[in-house]
């Protein structure tokens, strides 16, 4: 059990990458990396920035602050240089999106039951 935010990272089952360190994850959620090593486009799903689950995830897994990601996403969107992640509003919706979208990455709380998706631990460091 993580002492930090109790969240776990979910990835679509078709993605076999092993090497997801903090810097790489940070780049993925900042929408700077657009494809997985196998060429599949990355689809990022998040909860609303104001949710505690999101803020915990960002601090514990990405080693940054939610407001920093918000600024990066706002900048990309309103300057035409990128696309912000897709926002979902429930853990069930998050899980189904990860399950059904090739290349998807997201997170749920550690206690949320999932199957048929890749789970990458309580915390990457």
């Amino acid at each position, binding site marked *: 059990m993580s002492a930090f935010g109790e969240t776990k990272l979910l990835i679509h089952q078709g993605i076999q*990458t092993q*090497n997801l*360190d903090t*810097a*790489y994850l*940070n*780049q993925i959620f900042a929408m*700077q*990396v*657009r*494809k*997985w*090593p196998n060429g599949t*486009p990355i689809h990022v799903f998040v909860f*609303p920035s*104001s949710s505690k689950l999101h*803020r915990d995830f960002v601090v514990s897994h990405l*080693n*940054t*602050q*939610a*407001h*920093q990601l918000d*600024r990066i996403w*706002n*900048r990309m*969107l*309103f*300057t*035409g*240089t990128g*696309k912000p992640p897709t*926002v979902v509003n429930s853990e069930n919706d998050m899980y189904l999106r990860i399950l059904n979208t090739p290349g998807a990455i997201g997170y749920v709380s550690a206690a949320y039951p999932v199957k048929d998706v890749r789970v990458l631990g309580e915390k990457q460091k």
Partner: protein
Amino acid sequence: MRIHTKELLVLALLISPQANAIELNNTTQIHGFLSQAAVYSPDNPYAGTDADNGSVKFREIGLNGYSELTPDFRLAGQILSRQRDESDDGDVRVDFLLADYLVWSDHSSSFGLRAGRVKNTIGFYNSIRDIPSARPGYNVPDSIYFDAFRDSLLSTDGINLYGTALLDNNQLTWELTAGRKDVKSEDFEYFAFGYPVRKGEADDAPIYLLNVNFVPDILNNDLRLGISLVDTEIELENTQSVAEAQMALMTAPPGDALTNPHLYVTGAKIEALYATFSAQYNYKNWIFTSEYLHLNAKFMGEFAGMPANNRQKSHGYYFQVEWLSTPNTTWLARYEELDLGTNGSEINYNPHRDYGKGWTVGGRWMFADNWSITGQASFNEGTAWLPSYRGIEEKQLQKYWNYYVLSLSYQF
């Protein structure tokens, strides 16, 4: 057809019945924002005279769409209406409209190109200076992003190459832009002469821009460093002829060419090289930002046929602290200075235009999803960044001037 603020406002409200972005399908989304401000500027006219006693003629509306046709190919565009009393009339303009092709991408690097009208990434804030939610406070720092060249430097019609690289967990991003941009002639004229010229319009300006950002792995990715270089050239076209200017001189009072040189302009060109150095450090809920601008401008003027050249070096910098005291509240303090290096260009109505020094304090409260209210007070000495408008020369400008802003913003 000219669309005005009101039509755009209605359109924005009509298509945003819910708080989130409008997802037309999996690959197309529409976003937007509205910001309405009240500005009180008791000492100097701020973008017009309406704010002297408090004005609500300060409004920004944007509508934005993008479509991902394939994972590598996107279209994106934004229209913007910006009303600022006398200095901006709220007409809708195309802020950017571009096609973006990702040429190559792997787990540690990417490279792509955009074509069309692209926003210019200069310093941390130029590209988002019109986006209320992305600005620190009501406006971007005046010392670096002053109004004189705002329209000319906002975007480029041309090509933009971009890339990212992860080098041993150090993140590098870069952009290279080349193209042209139409220039708001009046801003150029007020910057160069302090007055509008009798005849002439600034021509489209060529722009070359390099921007590099670096996030080192040390310090937990909390430090961001940037450098931006911009090379541009602004030239007045269709000025009065030398004969016309000489004729005007003959009927003018003696010495008028020295006191009112703007009346006898027969040619003017500025070659400008901007260098902006940027640093930002995040520590927990604190964000420390500083930028420095060095502007090297070569001015080539001609007054009634007589050439007059000079070289002007301008410097600006600011230090800014933001404190995110709660997830919904931010506080801001900023100190800044700008020295335009125009020593001796005395202008009757505005004797303090050479420089600016100022403090800004402010706060923002995101009181509901997508809604925020921003308050700001700025205390200034010198008028280097006081926004100009046609008619400002009829005022006598004060050396010390403050302005106060309260703004309400919505974004979806």
